[in-house]
């Protein structure tokens, strides 16, 4: 975080900043109120057009920012909540991090809106869908633009609401509704942590606004003090919920109940990376709490591993991608834990490219297969869906870390930082990345290679998606191919664009501990070796997958076949949902009944009734009640009036 400069005499910038979230909001209002009245073409135009406009404004802001000395500034609109020393402004902060997130959110957001215009065209809730999608953009933009923690929280809960609305988009289906409810509630568990973190920040630093908090934090004596650990841990609990880290990750796979563009936009590319944004934004605070960073690294690593193992055994095309997202988010937190903030963000960016691509590709497959999602019933689709296949292949190569695709650069850089921190963590990270390459190619092979295993009707219906859907795929495929060049490691003698662009973000943190922000001091040989190992590991995984699913044409067993204990455990996601159900949900339900039936009605009310009877000498009042309580009331009133008159006489 650098010194913040106010924009000098440029009110038009304030308007532009406001328009970025406001345009999608207007889209939300128009499509929401005009639902079922506006023609579909207009709905799509409003939905996509507003987001495109936000993207263009973001590009303009970015260019303006970089060409005028890269000085961050805040834009204050009005005082939102002010009580005593607690002053919360409705204001935005424009700096390198905000702009990067803006470009990513609006850019990918626009592509996915465009894709949705095709994907959802047959849905009766077309207008509602675009309205919710635009509301999501609005919330997400508030999240990344806000200049204080409460504004971030506004966006944070807003995206949670949109996630809820969109997961349960087809609300006639109770399973989908349950998935939506689960997502909202699990997120709220995290949100409570975030909220308490905000309170503690306010108590500790006397403000919730980023510039003040970070400036104040550098003046705080001591590192790893209990209060700093508490603040960062509470914030991280929030991040765990939003970014689906252990133990709050089980909502994300269920969230796949929503339409596929939603999975791509919210549950892969943008919303779930909010946790990473939060930690990078608060890097000063986290640098001051190494203990929390260790916890983050461990949680991230364990999440990456656990989710990857589950991904090995899933047969639903979207579930595989969902677990892969959880696993990749784990990687990002692992990087944050070893203080490789920019590398983590770099991975957020490349992941947004290739994971959005993979989800949209999966959507295209599902679309072609008449809503089939089970990869056991697919196979051989590459002929019927050539563009989808090719772009999906690029996405798969990118996520597996094959050079020169985007994922290679970001994951390799991330793992190099982990290696520098701990060799064991690096080894486990490598294992997770091995599994990633395996399950992703398993998915690719089972879907696009071999023989078609679906029904005759599905085969008949197979078709490549329309251009409105394939164009976003192609754009994302290009980004997944070349996006990695934004962060070419110095060992290749090139400039790390992302790294140097983001480095002013750590000015305060460098004052506390400069080591993590220095260039890696690995020898060139080591760096080449690490790269070689991760590529080799990925290739081995791909070869194994190839042999199993293409050569031997293995198809995962059907639902009723008994599995080996380990396979069963993994297939059933370690029974985590069942465990939560038994230790949290059911006791809560039991408690609810017990409180109501026993404590409230029998115990508390019983005591009250007992006291009541005692006080009113039992029977007598009840008799008045039966003869009509009005009489009793008149008596009371008379009693009171007499009392007042008596006082009057007594004193007078």
């Amino acid at each position, binding site marked *: 975080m650098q010194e913040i400069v106010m924009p000098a005499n440029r009110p038009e910038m304030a308007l532009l900043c406001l328009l970025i979230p406001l345009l999608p909001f207007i889209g939300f209002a128009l499509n929401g109120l005009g639902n079922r009245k506006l023609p579909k073409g207009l709905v799509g135009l409003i939905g996509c057009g507003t987001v495109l406009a936000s993207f263009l404004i973001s590009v303009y802001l970015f260019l303006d920012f970089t060409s005028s000395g890269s000085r961050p500034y805040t834009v204050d609109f009005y005082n939102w909540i002010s009580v005593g020393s607690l002053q919360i402004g409705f204001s935005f902060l424009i700096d390198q991090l905000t702009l990067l997130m803006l470009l990513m959110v609006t850019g990918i957001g626009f592509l996915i809106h465009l894709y949705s215009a095709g994907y959802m065209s047959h849905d009766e809730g077309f207008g509602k869908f675009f309205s919710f999608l635009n509301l999501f953009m609005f919330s997400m933009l508030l999240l990344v633009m806000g200049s204080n923690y409460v504004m971030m929280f506004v966006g944070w809960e807003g995206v949670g609401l949109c996630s809820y609305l969109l997961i349960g988009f087809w609300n006639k289906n109770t399973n989908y*509704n349950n998935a939506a*409810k689960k997502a909202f509630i699990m997120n709220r568990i995290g949100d409570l942590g975030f909220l308490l973190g905000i309170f503690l920040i306010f108590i500790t630093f006397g403000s919730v606004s980023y510039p003040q908090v970070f400036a104040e934090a550098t003046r705080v004596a001591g590192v790893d003090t209990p209060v700093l650990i508490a603040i960062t841990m509470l914030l991280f609990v929030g991040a765990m919920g939003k970014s689906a880290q252990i133990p709050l990750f089980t909502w994300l796979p269920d969230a796949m109940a929503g339409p596929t563009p939603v999975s791509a936009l919210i549950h892969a590319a943008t919303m779930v990376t909010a946790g990473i944004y939060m930690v990078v934004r608060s890097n000063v605070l986290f640098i001051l709490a190494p203990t929390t960073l260790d916890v983050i690294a461990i949680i991230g690593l364990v999440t990456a591993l656990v989710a990857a193992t589950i991904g090995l055994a899933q047969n639903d095309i979207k579930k595989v991608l969902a677990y892969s997202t959880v696993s990749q988010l784990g990687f990002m937190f692992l990087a944050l834990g070893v203080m490789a903030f920019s590398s983590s963000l770099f991975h957020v960016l490349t992941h947004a490219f290739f994971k959005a691509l993979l989800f949209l590709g999966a959507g295209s497959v599902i679309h072609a297969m008449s809503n089939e999602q089970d990869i056991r019933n697919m196979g051989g689709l590459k002929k019927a869906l050539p563009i989808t296949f090719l772009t999906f292949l690029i996405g798969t190569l990118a996520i597996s870390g094959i050079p020169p695709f985007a994922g290679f650069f970001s994951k390799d850089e991330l793992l190099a930082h982990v290696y520098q921190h701990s060799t064991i963590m690096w080894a486990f990270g490598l294992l997770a990345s091995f599994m990633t390459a395996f399950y992703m190619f398993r998915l690719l092979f089972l879907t696009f290679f071999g023989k078609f295993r679906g029904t005759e009707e599905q085969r008949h219906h197979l078709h490549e998606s329309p251009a409105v859907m394939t164009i976003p795929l192609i754009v994302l495929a290009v980004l997944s191919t070349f996006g990695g060049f934004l962060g070419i490691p110095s060992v290749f003698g090139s400039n790390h664009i992302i790294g140097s662009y983001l480095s002013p973000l750590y000015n305060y943190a460098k004052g506390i501990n400069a080591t993590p922000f220095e260039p890696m001091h690995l020898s060139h040989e080591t760096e080449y070796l690490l790269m070689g190992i991760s590529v080799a590991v990925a290739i081995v995984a791909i070869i194994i997958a190839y042999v199993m699913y293409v050569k031997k044409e293995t198809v995962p067993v059907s639902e009723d076949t008994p599995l080996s204990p380990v396979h069963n455990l993994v297939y059933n996601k370690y029974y985590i949902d069942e465990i939560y159900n038994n230790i949290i949900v059911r006791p809560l339900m039991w408690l609810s009944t017990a409180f109501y039936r026993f404590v409230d009605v029998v115990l508390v009310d019983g005591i009250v009734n007992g006291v009541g009877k005692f006080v009113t000498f039992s029977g007598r009042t009840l008799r008045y*009640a039966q003869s009509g309580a009005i009489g009793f009331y008149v008596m009371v009133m008379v009693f009171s009036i007499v009392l007042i008159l008596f006082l009057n006489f007594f004193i007078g």
Partner: protein
Amino acid sequence: MITALLLFWPALAALLVLLVKGQGAKRVAFIAALVEFAFALFAATSFVVDRTAPQFALSVPWVESAGISFSIGMDGISLLMVLLTTFLVPLIVLSSFKHDYKKPNAFYALILFMQTGLIGVFVAQDAFLFYFFWEVALIPVYFISAIWGGARRVAVTFKFFVYTIFGSFFMLAAFIYLYFQTAGTGVAAHSSDVNAFYQLALDSSTQSWIFWFLFLAFAIKMPVFPFHTWQPDTYTEAPTQATMLLSGIMLKMGIYGVLRWLLPVVPNGASQWLDVVLVLSIIGIIYGSIIAIRQRDLKRLIAYSSIAHVGLISAGIFSLTEQGLQGGVIQMLSHGINVVGLFFIIDIIFSRTKTREILNLGGITQSTPALSICFMILMLGSVALPLTNGFVGEFLLLSGVFQYNYVFGAVAGVTIILGAVYMLRMFQGVMFGTKSPETEVFADLTFNEKAVLIPLVIMVFWIGLFPNTFLDISEPAVFNLLNIIQRR
């Protein structure tokens, strides 16, 4: 004078309504309530924000020799409560238009008569006057519930009545004791003026028991755990308009009583019992929320959720922090708006389907875009989603409780999780899923229904987006209150 007008206009209008025969009474009552709201708006526009003393004050000797006067006036807190009352009453009247209650003139006259009592409570600057209006507000709602309520109305309202009277006696006893400790002016030896009470210097053991006498009355009214057992039954059995009056406005009498007649009068007594009160309030939050999770009757569900919400208001106020008190004031407004809206929606559903059981409902959203949007917004306000009214209040309240004690704050904060659990469960059961036989045919909102819900929805966002409109009004009064507490 405007205060007196606000106070007596509803009572006058009530007499007028009594003369109207047939269902025309509801229209007369509605217009009268709107006029009252216009008076309140006029008062608000001429209110000077940065003053702590009561404005539009009027003081007439009542029992002069005893130092008891008819003394009324409004500071920022009073004004907000008056605005809330006068805003909600016309909507409550309008919400009843689809019902044809028997003896409509009596029904609507009682609502207006009650409004006088409510306004009186919020503007009284004299202890006995306050007590008088406290009781005046009770009579009409008691009759409304006992005459126009559900099948078990007699037993249930009697319990409500005994509870409240029980609390009131303690309040009256405390007031009489305090009164005799004051020094009077002029002919009177004592005074029951609010400032005379504020100037009392009582030793800490006296303050301690006075605290409980007063707290009991207010705690029953709110209600705070474990004094709440009248509330779910009463809310469920009373006709919806009475439930709205009780939950939307009347429970605020209890909270207002704490702010005006408890904390500044016996600050030392309060500080001795803060921990206990906070623990009780927080138990209420968790307890009410957990019970709400499995309620099947919609009215009862909202009744228990109200116990949770009020618990949080109470906890925040007793944290005695700027944020807690201001949060309490703004949350009184928000809770009033949200709970009235939710009870109205339940009434709409009940009038269409003849059931309030969640299990018999479902799929309503398929045919009702307008109702779905309004219900969703009120629900989100109730679960404190940012940019809705509930967030501002809960954020400030929880922040206050957290400043008082980290653990208390964290436990109270669980409300944001449990609130989502029961509210989403309710919303899903009623609105989503497949249609049931009861909801097979379900018409969307009528014009009258929209006329009630749209103002409420606007207020959800107004308070959510621009809470300073209201926070600024109450801030001088609240900070003055904190000064009085800390000074003594």
